[in-house]
């Protein structure tokens, strides 16, 4: 093999490896189609994979915080310094469309998952 051909093969192989790595990322990193979407003030603040255990602090700019716990596909707010603490008292959510809302901090934590809710509809 000539020197040029060797370099060619190396470059193509490297690109192939990079493509494979990116293809594998969603599998290694938890399925990205199942995510925890954190909205703050109506805008998407972050997205996290649902099946990647994590503790996520979210700071509310005028002062305040919420501590979000992602554990085994369930999401809950474990701590917050909002006045009513409704978000902390709420049970953990895990099914598609379920959410935890902290009104004082304008925070909405929503699940986007393939696992559909057992409920047909919810009236508020």
């Amino acid at each position, binding site marked *: 093999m000539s020197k*040029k051909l060797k370099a060619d093969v190396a470059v193509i192989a490297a*690109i192939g490896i990079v493509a494979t790595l990116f*293809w594998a990322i969603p599998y290694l990193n938890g399925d990205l189609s199942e995510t925890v979407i954190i909205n703050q003030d109506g805008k998407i603040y972050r997205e996290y994979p649902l099946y990647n255990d994590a503790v996520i602090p979210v700071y509310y700019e005028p002062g305040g915080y919420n501590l979000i716990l992602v554990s085994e596909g369930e999401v809950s707010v474990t701590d917050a310094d909002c006045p009513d603490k409704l978000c902390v008292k709420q049970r953990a959510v895990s099914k598609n469309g379920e959410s935890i809302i902290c009104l004082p901090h304008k925070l909405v934590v929503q699940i986007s998952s393939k696992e559909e809710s057992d409920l047909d509809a919810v009236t508020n």
Partner: protein
Amino acid sequence: MKGKPAYLGLLLAFAMMLSYIETLIPFAVGIPGVKLGLANLAVVLCLYLFRFREAFLLTVVKAVVCGFLFGNLSMIIYSLAGAVLSCLVMAAMVKSDSFHIPVVSAVGGVMHNAGQLLVAYITVRTYGVVYYVPVLIISGLLTGIVIGTVTSLVLPYIKTVMKRSGQL
């Protein structure tokens, strides 16, 4: 090289024509963002006929002009990011003179898509674009190899013509 502006004009016209032809070809594989990238033929040719400066100029002008003609402003931003990155990497590879033309063009195709994905990631800030990376890398690779092969077939003839008229 007196006729250089004329040749660059020809290459730009060539790129614009290819961009137009590409809008006519129904090359739909069901994945948005995957296209032949015919206009890159002109950029690869330019890199081999002239130097980096000329190719870079061609790239930028091509992206802006073709964007206004066949696309919109957001398309210009995407294709500028892709085209500039692709041109820089290809220029480095041409200068090193250790790769064949199809491979240079293939890497260019991949970089073109990489630049666009980067802009997409910056605008939407979702990890969802990661899904798209392997698809666009492979498609960039394949279309790049096709474009590069065509370039390597055409290049000797253009060089002969340019030599005969004392331009090279």
